[in-house]
C-alpha cells in the first residue's frame, strides 16, 4: 500500500461529487478555451502582421482612396524595397450573409509582398494570363465547392455592376494566422471597367502595402512617406501593418477586453468549484487526518494527499474541458454566419493556459483545507464530530 493508493481511493470516495466537480471544471475550461479562441480570432489579423510591412492609407479614413501615382514616389523612399497596393471591392456573392474579403490587387507585386498566400506556380501563371481571373483561399473553395475554372459572379456595391471572375488559383495559407478565405483579382481588370463606367474614380486605389528592408526603420520611413504627401489633396497615414490591423479592433476593444476578463473570471470559478469540494472533503475527514497525524504522518505527506486529490480533480476536469473545447470551437464556428471569423483555431497557448490553470487551481484549491488540517490539533481532530 502506497500513499498514492490512498490518494486515488480518497478521490473516488464520493464518486458522484467527484464526477460533478470534474464536469464543472470541464465546462468552465471549455468556456475559457472558447472565449480565448474568440479573442484569438479577433486578433488574427494582428497576429498575421509582418514586421516588415507598412500600410499607407488616406490620412482621413481608410474608406477614402489614394492616387495610384503615389506608388512610384513611395518606392523611391530609402529603405523601401517593394510597394504593392490593393482596393476593397466588397460586393455580394450569392447573398449578403456570405462574408469574405474581396480585393483588387496589383497581381505583379502583391504576392511577392504576401508570401503567406501559397499558390502553385502553374495556377499563378494561369491567373496572370487571364484578365478576369481570381485567386481564392482554400477555405472558400471548400465552403462554396469551387474548383479551378469555376465562375464566381459578384454583384458590385462599392463598384456597381455585375462582375464575373474565373477561379484560376487556390491558395493555401502558410501559417495558422493567415486568412484562408480571401478572394483576390487583378486591379487592372477593375480599373479598366472603372475608366469606362466611373471615370472619376479611375486611377484610385485603397491602400499601399510597403515592404521595407529593416523593420527597425519603420518609424522613419512612415514619417518620410507621410511628409511626402503632406498638404496634398490626399494626405497619407503610414503605420506598421500591426498598428493598421489593431486600428480595426479599436471599436470592439471593450468587448474583447470584457471577453478576456470573463475568460479569467472563469478560472476563478473553477477555483471555487474545486476549492469547495476540497473544503467539504477535508472537513468530512477531519477525524482521519487527526489519526494520520497521530500515527506520525508529516505535514508534507498530508499536503500530498490533499493537493494530490485536488489536482486529480482539476486536471481531469481540465483534460475533459480541453477535449470538449475542440468540437465546441467547431460547433461555434459552424453556428456563426460564414466568414465572420476566417481564422478560427485553438492556439497552443490556449491549451497550455488551460493546463496551467488546471494545475494551479488544483494546488490553490487545496491550500485552505490544508491550512485547516495542519492547524487543527490532533486531540481536537479526534474529538471532531462532523
Amino acid at each position, binding site marked *: 500500500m502506497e500513499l498514492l493508493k*490512498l490518494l486515488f481511493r480518497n478521490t473516488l*470516495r464520493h464518486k458522484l461529487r467527484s464526477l460533478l466537480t470534474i464536469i464543472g471544471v470541464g465546462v468552465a475550461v471549455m468556456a475559457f478555451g472558447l472565449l480565448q479562441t474568440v479573442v484569438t480570432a479577433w486578433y488574427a489579423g494582428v497576429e498575421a502582421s509582418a514586421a516588415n510591412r507598412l500600410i499607407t492609407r488616406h490620412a482621413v479614413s481608410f474608406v477614402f482612396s489614394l492616387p495610384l501615382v503615389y506608388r512610384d514616389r513611395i518606392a523611391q523612399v530609402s529603405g523601401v524595397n517593394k510597394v504593392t497596393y490593393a482596393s476593397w471591392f466588397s460586393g455580394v456573392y450569392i447573398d449578403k450573409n456570405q462574408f469574405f474579403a474581396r480585393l483588387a490587387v496589383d497581381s505583379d507585386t502583391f504576392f511577392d509582398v504576401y508570401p503567406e498566400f501559397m499558390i502553385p506556380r502553374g495556377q499563378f501563371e494561369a491567373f496572370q494570363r487571364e484578365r478576369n481571373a481570381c485567386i481564392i483561399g482554400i477555405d472558400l473553395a471548400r465552403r462554396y465547392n469551387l474548383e479551378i475554372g469555376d465562375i464566381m459572379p459578384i454583384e458590385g456595391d462599392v463598384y456597381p455592376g455585375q462582375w464575373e471572375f474565373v477561379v484560376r488559383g487556390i491558395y493555401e495559407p502558410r501559417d495558422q494566422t493567415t486568412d484562408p478565405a480571401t478572394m483576390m483579382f487583378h486591379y487592372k481588370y477593375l480599373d479598366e471597367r472603372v475608366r469606362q463606367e466611373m471615370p472619376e474614380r479611375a486611377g484610385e486605389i485603397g491602400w499601399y502595402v510597403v515592404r521595407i528592408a529593416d523593420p527597425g526603420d519603420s518609424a522613419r520611413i512612415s514619417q518620410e512617406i507621410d511628409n511626402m504627401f503632406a498638404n496634398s489633396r490626399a494626405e497619407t497615414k503610414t503605420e506598421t501593418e500591426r498598428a493598421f490591423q489593431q486600428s480595426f479592433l479599436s471599436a470592439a476593444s471593450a468587448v474583447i477586453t470584457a471577453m478576456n476578463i470573463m475568460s479569467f473570471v472563469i478560472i476563478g470559478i473553477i477555483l471555487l468549484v474545486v476549492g469547495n469540494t476540497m473544503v467539504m472533503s477535508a472537513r468530512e475527514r477531519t477525524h482521519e487526518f487527526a489519526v494520520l497525524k*497521530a500515527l506520525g504522518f508529516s505535514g508534507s505527506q498530508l499536503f500530498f494527499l490533499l493537493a494530490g486529490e485536488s489536482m486529480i480533480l482539476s486536471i481531469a476536469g481540465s483534460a475533459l474541458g480541453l477535449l470538449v473545447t475542440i468540437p465546441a470551437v467547431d460547433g461555434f464556428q459552424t453556428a456563426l454566419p460564414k466568414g465572420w471569423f476566417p481564422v478560427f483555431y485553438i492556439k497552443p497557448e490556449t491549451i497550455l493556459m488551460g493546463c496551467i490553470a488546471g494545475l494551479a487551481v488544483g494546488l490553490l484549491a487545496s491550500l485552505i483545507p490544508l491550512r485547516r488540517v495542519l492547524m487543527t490539533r*490532533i486531540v481536537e481532530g479526534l474529538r471532531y464530530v462532523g
Partner: protein
Amino acid sequence: MEAPLIEVAELYKSYHRDSLEIPVLSNINLEILEGEFLAFMGPSGSGKTTLLNLIAGIDKPTSGKIMIGGVAITELSETELAVWRSRNVGFIFQFYNLIPVLTAVENVELPLILTPLSKRERRAHAETALQVVGLAERLHHYPRQLSGGQEQRVAIARAIATDPTILVADEPTGDLDKASAEEVLELMERLNRELNKTILMVTHDPRAAERARSVRHLEKGELA
C-alpha cells in the same frame, strides 16, 4: 532496581476558554515500568484521556516533563514528536478510526509507510499483525464489511505493526458489545503477557480495568 520506561514529573495541563483558565491535570508524578499494563480510571472530566494523550505525544502539557525511553518528549518540536510517535506509540481508539477506503491489511500497513521497510516487507508485517489478532482470513475486507470487534482488532493490529514502545488505548471497549469487548481485552492481555508490550489504557469499565496489571485512579485532575 529496573529503570522506569515512562517518567512523568510535575505535569500540569490547563485549557483556556476566553480569559478563563480551566485546570485539567495538576501535579502528576508517575513512573511506569516496561511491560506494564496500566489502566487509568476515573469519572468523566477527571483528566485521564488528557494524561494518556500527553504520554502518547499528541498533546502538549502546560508545564512538567515526560520522559519515555530516555527521551524527553515534552521538549521535542512538533516534527520531532511526529517522528517519535511513528516509532514509539501504537494507538487504539474507542471508535477504531480505521480508514474506510482501505482494506484491513492496507489499514495495518498505513503506519509502516513511515518506516524504511520495502513494500513486500510492509505487507508481510501487516499480514503477521493481522494473524496475531486472529484476522488472517479478513485481510482484504473493508472496515464496513467487519463487525465492531473485528474493526477494533484491525486497529490493534495497526497499533502493533510497527512494534512500538508503548500501546495507548482510549476506551478500547467503549463501543463494543460484551463478547467483542472480552475478545479485545483478551487480545490486549495476551500482547502484554506474551509480547511484553507496555500498555496504557483509559477505561470506565471496571471489567476492563480488571485485565490490567495495575490501576490508577484520577480525581479532578490528580492521581489518587
